[in-house]
């Protein structure tokens, strides 16, 4: 039994069609036409205690919709969810006590008050015992460096600081599970790194299970053993990141700079995917030919000035899966 169980989960939104003109507006008073948006379609997965799972997908893939259903503020159209034994939407408040939630694009802190005041408020709301509250505050201040802005009004915090405060706020009541919806969105590199370190630490030190959504692949690379890739409301892949790399990582790109113009350039075992003046991009597969074989072949016909080998970027692999599915031919374009 997983800590979180999701079975054949779907969410369809009904969107009222806007009708044209005054007549349409009048007609829509009496009769509205609806369009169905299938935001999440037949998703199943289970998460075990202590895992850090990356829920990744492009904008509009259905990530937030899934998180909202897991937290209980959205009722599934069909399918089942259990979060630590609780059906979230049926026992929303009970569920709220065992989970922490951060939506990256909004804050749960009181905008006009010093950060510490929001923490105190949440202490009351979740009835956190004094001693536990002090311990938690000490720990979070330590790793998140909250000390420097605890007495600053939230509206004056930088985005990075606000995110740190928000994540600390979501953990004050010692939740078993932490849901993070785009926790790194809009952050600069340093702030992102800091956030990732904290999430890792919380998971390791406290055993908090983390589900985070993102469209930033490096979040996944740095944080998650496992990722669930979704697109258009469907799971495209669920498993280790390493497997993806193995499956699609065989493909590499060799970039060669030649002396002089290369006309009718062709080499067995590699495909030209791009050409800019004397610079050529050649895609090849590790299974078929090695890089040194390729370079040898090329140097027999042309004069080589410089070569670089590029590992496939994870983003590109992901895009490939989006476009062709897991089983599709690996013939993506590398930029």
């Amino acid at each position, binding site marked *: 039994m997983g800590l979180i169980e999701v079975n054949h989960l779907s969410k369809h*939104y009904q969107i009222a069609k806007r009708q044209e003109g005054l007549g349409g507006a009048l007609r829509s008073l009496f009769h509205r036409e609806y369009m169905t948006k299938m935001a999440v379609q037949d998703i199943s997965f289970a998460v075990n205690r202590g895992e850090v799972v990356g829920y990744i997908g492009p904008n509009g893939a259905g990530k937030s919709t899934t998180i909202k259903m897991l*937290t209980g503020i*959205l*009722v599934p159209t069909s399918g089942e969810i259990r979060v630590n034994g609780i059906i979230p939407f049926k026992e929303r408040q009970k569920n*709220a006590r065992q989970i922490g939630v951060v939506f990256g694009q909004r804050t749960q802190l009181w905008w006009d008050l010093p950060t510490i005041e929001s923490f105190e*408020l949440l202490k*009351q709301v979740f009835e956190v015992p004094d001693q536990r509250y002090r311990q938690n505050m000490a720990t979070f201040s330590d790793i998140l460096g909250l000390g420097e802005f605890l007495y600053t009004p939230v509206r004056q915090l930088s985005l990075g600081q606000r995110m740190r405060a928000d994540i600390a706020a979501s953990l004050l009541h010692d939740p078993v599970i932490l849901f993070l919806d785009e926790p790194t969105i809009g952050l600069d590199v340093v702030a992102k790194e800091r956030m990732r370190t904290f999430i890792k630490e919380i998971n390791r030190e406290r055993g908090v299970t983390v589900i985070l959504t993102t469209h930033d692949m490096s979040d996944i690379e740095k944080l998650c053993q496992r990722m669930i890739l979704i697109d258009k409301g469907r799971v495209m892949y669920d498993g280790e990141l390493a497997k993806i790399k193995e499956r699609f990582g065989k493909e590499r790109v060799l970039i060669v700079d030649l002396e002089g113009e290369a006309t009718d350039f062709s080499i067995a075992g590699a495909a030209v995917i791009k050409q800019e003046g004397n610079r050529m991009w050649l895609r090849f597969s590790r299974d078929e030919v090695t890089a040194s074989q390729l370079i040898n072949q090329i140097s027999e016909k042309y004069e080589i000035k410089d070569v670089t080998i590029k590992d496939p970027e994870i983003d590109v692999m992901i895009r490939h899966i989006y476009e062709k599915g897991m089983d599709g031919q690996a013939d993506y374009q590398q930029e």
Partner: protein
Amino acid sequence: MILEVIILGTFKMYGEFSRKSFQRAAAYRFDAWTRIIGNVMFLFMWGFIWYGLYHGKGEVEGVSFQAMLSYILISQALQGLHGAGTPLWEIQERVRTGDIAMEMLRPYDYPTRMLFSDFGSITFYFMTAIVPLYTVLFLVLKPVVPTSFSQGGLFVVSAILGYLIRYCIELTFGLFTFWLVETGGVEDIFYFAISLFSGSVIPLWFFPGWLEQVAGYLPFQGIFFVPNSIFVGQLTGQAVWDALLSQVIWLLICYAILRFVWAKASMKIVIQGG
């Protein structure tokens, strides 16, 4: 015993919202004090208008100018207090941005927590702006004031009932945002009804008969007209009790409507995603 602990705990939690709101109002005290300037400006405007209307007349409809002055003063004071609560546009904004949906992730009742938040900011405004200012005004202008302890007490009860009625109506109107694309109309209706039918600036006894009757059938008169009239002594004896009873009934009705609309709104959030 256990029940006591739960009730005490719940009260402490909601009370914390009042405290935080109080602190927030304190942080924004400059804002509160600019509001009071506006409040006083309206006070003088209405004062002069009524002074002009009363010119040369001892009483109008059996009401002396001193009583009318008192009516305007207490009405402006109450309006000032109401203005310190969460305004309609802010509720609409919270619906629009989806912030209200996030509150459903908390183990509390949203309408109740909003009410307690408003208590905090109103208390701050009451202590730092309304009390000092209106004490001075009453001392200087010497209008009619309650002559007995019970009249004063009934006024306070009525004023609180009035605030609660307004709170229910305003939040309900704010929640309509869930179903509307364009909310300007709702705002207009709300402010029109509040300023006309509540007796905030024109006491209902000056209304033409038919309009007074219409106002009598609406909940808005319970917001300012009833407490103001008790304050200036226009409602006395049995009439006070009748008026209070009608306030209580309206409060219950408005609260029931609020709960109904909130239940519908919550359903909309969880089914349609806000």
